[in-house]
C-alpha cells in the first residue's frame, strides 16, 4: 500500500516537473520548492545523524564523562570552534564564523599544496614522458608512437594556449592555435558524453513512469 501511494506521488511530482517543458507554471513551481525544502531537510538530518553526533557529540560526551580527564578534553576546543558557526545567526557577532572558516581554509590549502603538486603536476608530467622512454626502448607499435607524439603536441600546445604573459604571435601564436584544436576536440568529446549522461536520466524516468506507475512493460 505504501508503495502504491509512493509511486503515485512520485509520478505526480515527476509530471509536475516535466510540465516545465511546456512552460513555467504553478505545478512546476510547487514541485521545485518542495524539492528544495525536502532536500535541505534531508541534508540537516544526515548531517546531524551521520556528522554532528558521531564526529562531535560522541567525542564531547567521552571527554566530559571520562575520569580522570585525559587527552579527550582537547576535543572540546574544536567543538567550541565549530559552535562559532552559530554566530551566523547573531548579526553583531557574525564575524566570529571567520574563525572556523579560516582554520578549515588553512588546513585545506595546506593539504592541497604538496598533494596537488605531486599528483596533478609531477605525475602528469611523468605520464607524458613515459611513452618516450618506451619509444627509445623500442617497445611501442607504430600507432602507439603516433599517439605519444600526438600527446606531446597536445599537452604542450594546450599549455601554451593558457599562457597569458606573452602575445600569441608568430611561433607562440601558431602553437596556441594547435592548442585550440586539441581543446575543441576535448570539449567535443565531453559534449558527446554529456548527451549520453542526460539522456540516461530521461530514460530512467520514462522507465519509472511506464513500468512502476503505468505497468505498461
Amino acid at each position: 500500500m505504501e508503495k502504491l501511494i509512493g509511486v503515485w506521488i512520485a509520478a505526480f511530482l515527476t509530471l509536475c516537473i516535466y510540465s516545465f517543458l511546456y512552460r513555467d507554471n504553478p505545478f512546476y513551481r510547487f514541485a521545485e520548492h518542495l524539492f528544495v525544502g525536502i532536500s535541505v531537510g534531508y541534508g540537516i538530518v544526515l548531517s546531524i545523524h551521520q556528522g554532528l553526533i558521531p564526529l562531535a557529540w560522541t567525542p564531547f560526551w567521552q571527554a566530559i564523562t571520562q575520569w580522570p580527564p585525559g587527552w579527550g578534553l582537547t576535543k572540546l576546543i574544536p567543538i567550541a570552534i565549530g559552535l562559532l558557526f552559530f554566530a551566523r545567526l547573531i548579526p553583531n557577532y557574525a564575524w566570529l564564523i571567520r574563525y572556523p572558516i579560516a582554520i578549515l581554509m588553512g588546513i585545506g590549502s595546506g593539504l592541497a599544496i604538496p598533494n596537488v603538486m605531486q599528483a596533478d603536476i609531477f605525475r602528469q608530467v611523468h605520464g607524458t614522458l613515459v611513452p618516450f622512454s618506451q619509444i627509445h626502448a623500442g617497445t611501442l607499435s607504430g600507432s602507439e608512437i603516433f599517439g605519444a607524439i600526438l600527446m606531446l603536441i597536445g599537452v604542450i600546445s594546450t599549455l601554451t594556449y593558457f599562457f597569458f604573459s606573452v602575445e600569441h604571435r608568430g611561433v607562440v601564436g601558431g602553437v596556441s592555435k594547435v592548442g585550440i584544436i586539441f581543446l575543441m576536440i576535448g570539449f567535443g568529446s565531453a559534449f558527446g558524453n554529456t548527451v549520453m549522461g542526460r539522456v540516461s536520466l530521461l530514460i530512467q524516468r520514462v522507465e519509472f513512469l511506464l513500468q512502476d506507475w503505468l505497468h505498461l512493460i
Partner: protein
Amino acid sequence: MKPKSACLLGLILFFTCKIITLAQLSEFSSEEFRATDEITAGKPPAPPTNIKATDKKNDDGTHITISWTKSADDGNGANNVTSYNILRKSPESNFETITKTLIKTGKTDYTDDTVKRDKTYSYLVQAVTASGTTSNSEVTGAEATASWFHTGKKWLFLSVVLFSVVVIYSIYHARSGKNIFIRRIPGLEAVDEAIGRATEMGRSILYILGLGSVSNVATIASMNILSQVARRTADYETALRVPCNDPIVMNVVREMVKTAYLEGGHPDAYQEQDIFFLTESQFAYAAGVDGIMLREKPAAVFLQGTFFAESLILAETGNSVGAIQIAGTDKEHQLPFFIAACDYTLIGEELYAASAYLSREPMLLGSLKGQDYGKLMIFAAIVVGVILELIGVNWVTTFFDKVSN
C-alpha cells in the same frame, strides 16, 4: 604450510625459547642453536650468511629491514632449503619468531614493521628445510629511529618552496606598480563590437552573471568585466540589463555599475531598476531570462561567471534571438555548450585573465604571472625530458617518477 611441518616448527621454537630462557643468553652465537637441531631429524642446511639489519630511512621509526645472502643449500648444494624464518630479540624479550608465515626461498629481505622507536633489536635468520630442520645465521642488530624530514621528498619540498617564492615575488612585483603584460583575449575585443551593434540597432544589452555567489572567483571576475562593459554602455547610452540570481550579488552589482556610470560622466543614465533580482532557483531563473530575451531581443548577451546545467538553455535562446553572445566560465562542463552556441567564449583561466587585465588588480595580475612561470617550468621539463629520452638518457623521467611516487 603443511600442518605437519607447522607442528614441527612449533616444537623447534618451543625448545629454542626454552634453551634461551634457561641460558639467559644475552650475547650468544648461533652455535647454541645447533643443539636443538639435533633433536629433530634430518641434516641442517647451510645457514644464511651476510645478514644485515638496517633501520628504514624516512619513516616514523617503526621499521627495520633485514637482508641476507641465501643459504648455500638454497637452490644449490643439498638444495633442501624450503624457506626462511626470522627471529628477533628486543630489549625486553628473548629471541622469538616474528615472521607470521615462512618467507619463501629466493627472497632475501624482510621488513619488520612491529618494532618500537629508539630501541635496539637483534635479528637472526633461519634457513628451514622441508623436514623442519633449521640452521641459524649470525646475529645482527639495529636501532629503529624516526626521521624528522623525509629526504625522499626533498625535491617536492624544494618545488613547493620555489613555486611559492615565484608567486609571492610576482605579486609584490605587480604591487610595486610595474606594468604586467597580458595577452590579447579575443572575447574581450568583441565587447566593443557588441556594444556598438546594440547602439546601432537601438536595442539593449543583457548581462548574465550566472548562479554564483559573491565568494565565487568566477563571479568576481565577471563583475570586473561587467564594470568595464558598464563604462562603455554609459558612453554610448545603451540600455544595460542585469537579471540577478543572488540578492547579494545584485546589491554589489548595482554599486559597481553606478560607480562606472559616475566615473564615465553619465550618472543620470544609470537606471537602478535595470539591475534586478529574478529568482534564486536554477531553472526558474533560466526560464525568466529566456522570457526577457524573447521579449526584448537584446542585441548582445554576455554570459560570464559561474554556470551550471542551465547554461545551454540560456545560450540556445540567446542564439535563437540572433544576439551576439560573449560567454565565459570556469565550469569546464558547461564550456562545450557555450563554445557551440556563442560567438566568443572565454575558456576557464581566460576568464580570470580577462578580469585581471581589466581590473589591473595586482594580486590577480601577479598570480597570473607566477602561474605562467610555473607553466614555463613544466613546459621546459617536458621538452627537455622528451629530448633526453629519445637519445636514451632517462634521468628526467626517473626524477619525475621518484618525486611523484
